[in-house]
């Protein structure tokens, strides 16, 4: 006595209470009395915070003018940032040479675009351009001395420009170094492994400030007489070593995520250790660790503010220096808010990118 249904039921739209604005609100805002209360309280908090911020940063703020006398509102005095904008962006880089920095930015931006986006499939040439051509070109562009470009001392570099240079050079150096350290840490040779572990754990265990301090004031004591490095270079060495230790851990995570079978397959095909590493393991490991690498980069980028300790005038310090100008005393809040905003835009952009990438790689695995 089978019961058989012959008529097929058609697909109906869900009841109204489930969809649209009402359904959404019911589901997301008022699903229980507690939730409803939370919603109301939160909305009040948001209103309170937003109205404060907006009136400080926009409604009561001053945008036009040249000096502090033009600041009449009770809110922020953005005139300060406007007046000092050049210095904040380029530091003491000579005004007539600033185009060189801009050209460098453009070169790097083009490379970044092609490497990071999906526009081109084969990343070989863009990568070569970004990781070989751009650094070399930027080096000559920024420091000058060749091709009829006037020399610009690194002591004149500053502001956002210096921050970007510090961050990009240290990521650029720390990545290969980190890979070497990560491989060393997984090496079967106990001494090599111990050294790598020792270095990584030491560097990760001490604050960047002390590392910078050491690089800045103690390095010269370690070097033979007469040998001396530019202060910027010393900061770069310190930051690169520091981030290399972190990078090593990121890369190690990537290496660990590669199934053992990959190495075995490579070996069984007759590939040697370095061939297998270079052709099979590392490409995959690096690819899956890109999100974490980006996160390390974010950390590094934020840490550039610490070079203040050793007297390099990065974005934060140059803004602070601006507030020591007697024309602009008391503009500290505006300064910090502005610096915070700039950093936030960069870091948030990077973190979104890493999330996007993570999702992309994730779906990539599931064919």
């Amino acid at each position, binding site marked *: *006595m*089978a*019961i*058989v*249904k*012959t008529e*097929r*039921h058609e*697909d*109906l*739209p*869900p*009841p109204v209470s*489930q*969809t649209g604005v009402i359904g959404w609100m019911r589901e997301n805002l008022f699903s229980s009395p507690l939730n409803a209360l939370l919603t109301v309280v939160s909305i009040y908090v948001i209103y309170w915070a937003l109205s404060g911020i907006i009136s400080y940063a926009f409604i009561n703020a001053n945008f036009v003018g040249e000096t502090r006398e033009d600041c009449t509102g009770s809110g922020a005095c953005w005139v300060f940032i406007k007046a000092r904008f050049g210095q904040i962006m380029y530091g003491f880089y000579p005004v007539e040479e600033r185009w060189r920095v801009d050209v460098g930015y453009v070169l790097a931006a083009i490379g970044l675009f092609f490497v990071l986006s999906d526009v081109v499939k084969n990343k070989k040439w863009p990568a070569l351009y970004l990781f070989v051509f751009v650094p070399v070109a930027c080096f000559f562009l920024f420091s000058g001395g060749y091709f009829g470009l006037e020399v610009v001392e690194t002591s004149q570099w500053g502001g956002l420009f210096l921050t970007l240079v510090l961050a990009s050079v240290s990521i650029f150096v720390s990545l290969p170094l980190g890979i070497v350290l990560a491989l060393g840490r997984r090496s079967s040779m106990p001494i090599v492994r111990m050294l790598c572990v020792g270095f990584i754990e030491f560097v990760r265990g001490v604050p960047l400030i002390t590392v910078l301090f050491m690089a800045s004031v103690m390095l010269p004591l370690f070097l033979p007489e007469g040998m001396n490095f530019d202060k910027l270079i010393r900061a770069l060495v310190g930051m690169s070593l520091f981030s290399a230790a972190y990078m090593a851990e990121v890369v190690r995570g990537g290496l660990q995520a590669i199934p053992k079978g990959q190495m075995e397959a490579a070996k069984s095909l007759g590939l040697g250790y370095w061939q297998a590493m270079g052709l099979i393991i590392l490409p995959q490991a690096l690819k899956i660790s890109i999100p974490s690498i980006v996160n390390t980069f974010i950390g590094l980028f934020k840490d550039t503010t610490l070079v203040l300790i050793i007297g390099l005038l990065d974005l934060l310090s140059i803004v602070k220096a601006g507030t020591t100008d007697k024309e602009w005393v008391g503009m500290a809040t505006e300064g910090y808010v502005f610096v915070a905003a700039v950093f936030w835009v960069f870091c948030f952009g990077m973190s979104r990118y890493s999330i996007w990438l993570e999702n992309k790689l994730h779906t990539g695995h599931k064919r």
Partner: protein
Amino acid sequence: MSEAAKTQSQNDVAIQIIGMHKWYGEFHVLKDINLTVDRGERIVVCGPSGSGKSTMIRCINRLEEHQQGQIIVDGIELTNDVKKIDEIRREVGMVFQHFNLFPHLTVLENCTLAPIWVRKTPKAEAEATAMKFLERVKIPEQALKYPGQLSGGQQQRVAIARSLCMNPRIMLFDEPTSALDPEMISEVLDTMISLAEEGMTMICVTHEMGFAKTVADRVIFMDAGEIIEQAPPTEFFENPQSERTQLFLSQILHNA
């Protein structure tokens, strides 16, 4: 029709589903489900992947919310009332495809957790009950191990024992054997058969035709969110009425 159903659903009816619909967002997963399960009845649900089998039985203990129609379990209607939901969940045991044992607890602790914290049973008593059911599923010697140390078949049997420890009147099984290696399937099926023989009310989503033939009182075939055909197993396998069922059975039997 729901009138007639209601009067009937007093004592001898374990589960009654009346005109139930469910949507996932815009997607209409379950369409006008009507089903009455008597006490002690053993029902096997089958159908192609994505037809809504899991969703249906998950609605029965409110792991999913239905949006239209009624579900009455043991005389209690499922609404948003948390108390009622708790009551029903205590009466309805569920065994999942992937066991979902608690990996941080030993087998014994897995089995006693709910009795102790939900039923407020004294620990010693809960442990005694748990050992009883572990013996029942033939793995008392594993009681102090952790789930990670057991094979799949053993894990699934622990999952069954865990449900039984709450003394449910109804058991739901969602493809309990499909994540198992072939050698282990029979262990679990044997346990289920012995349960069935004791007269437990069971709804079981499975494609094990052998099991269906041995124990089921009724086989329900679902497709695209609807119950297409219901029949006793012999009739269902030998003489399927609907075309859709015939097609499905031909595939299944071909593969086996």
